[in-house]
């Protein structure tokens, strides 16, 4: 599991590669906290290369969502793969974490 990020004009993109499970979850939180601390509270987590997420991974996304909102921003997700989509739908979290086709579109409307 790897995370990298890139700060763009109006948002920061965090790329998640590999399984988002209990091993990866704390790392994602670390990276997003670092991004927020650096002044970017509008964050897109790009999940295009994440084909598995468990409840720990979901927990990390929620934690990151709270962190960005506390800083006055928001967290959105993009490139959601089928298994991740299933977990989001089962837990009804798709109503809270909005999925966009691509990172560019995530903050495209505002």
């Amino acid at each position, binding site marked *: 599991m790897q995370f990298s990020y890139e700060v763009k004009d109006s948002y920061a993109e965090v790329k998640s590669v590999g399984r988002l*499970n*209990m091993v990866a979850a704390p790392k994602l939180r670390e990276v997003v906290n670092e991004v927020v601390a650096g002044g970017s509270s509008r964050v897109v987590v790009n999940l295009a290369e994440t084909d*598995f997420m*468990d*409840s*720990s991974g*979901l*927990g990390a996304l*929620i*934690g990151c969502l*709270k962190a960005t909102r506390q800083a006055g921003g928001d967290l959105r997700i993009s490139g959601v793969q*089928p*298994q991740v989509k*299933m*977990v989001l*739908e*089962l*837990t*009804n*979290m798709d*109503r*809270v974490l909005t999925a966009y086709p691509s990172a560019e579109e995530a903050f495209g409307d505002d």
Partner: protein
Amino acid sequence: MVSSSPVRHAVVVEDDADIRGLLVLVLEQLDFVVTEAPDGLSGVEAVRNTNAELVTLDVNLPDIDGMEVCRRLREFSDAYILMLTARADEIDRLNGLDIGADDYINKPFSPKELQARIRALFRRARTSAAAADDTGQTDELARAAVVQQSLLPRETVRLEGYDVAGAFRPTRSVGGDFYDWYQTRNGMHLTFADAMGKGMGAALIAATVRAVMRSVADTPAIDAAFGSASTTIASDLDQSGSFATMFHARLDAPSGKLSYIDAGHGLALHIPAEGAAQRLVSAGPPVGILDGQHWAAAELQLEPGDSLVIVSDGVLDAHASLEDFIRNVEKAARSEGTSDGVCAALLELAPAATAEDDVTAVVVHRKPDIGR
């Protein structure tokens, strides 16, 4: 392991004479020689004088409080300290203070539960003595496992015309799965929850969820009960930055009417005697995500021959798609004779060798009408 002394001493520090008497009885049944102390200072002295191996300690005492007693004891004693609190939400706070207690139990407690906890404490001692290179982390995990295990219901549900069973397999890292049930006048209440996270944090959240859900057992309407419980739970979850998926149901056994609320769990299935399995749709996100959330109650009719099956996400994670998952759960539910057998088959869907999470299953089966 060589026992240092055949006589084991225990001290009960408790100001309420009735509870003190009960605790003494409970400990004597476990063959402890018990000394009573009605306040904190005499408690510390009693532990010093008897070299006790076990202390039960009330949090609220007339002189110094239980936390202070605990700190003083830790200066000279490595006795097991079991703290008794009157409030479930105190456990988190106490644990956060790291005052050196070994376990916590809520009042009112059942004598059986208390004895089980004490046995677990001493069993753990043997285990860690066997593994001399034990690190602090595994010790913490062992404690978390004890907490998690203690949340499962000890009583079996015996309802005429029903076969109810549950099964739980923890991971080494200890997750936040648990289920709880109890019989009511007309049937049963059931709670199935998964607190996000691992280790002691998740186990303690699960403990809080269990206690809070039990505290609303007498609220007649399920949505009012769940609404008030979820508000309490959410405020605790907010402090710890966590959340919990929950499924809560109430069964009226004679009619087969099941009222339920699903908060982000989404893994409860209705397996009718005839016809396709249906997943019960979740009424909203998990508890602890959004403020002011409301979850609507729904109803399900359990006909003779039908089953309600609830599993944790550990089972889902072992499947590539939701369709595969539902197909396998349905197959398991229809394959075995008893609900215990079905639970075992459901756990098998997430093989222990590869499962990263706890795996939990509960089955409520209404037996078919025979010879009508």
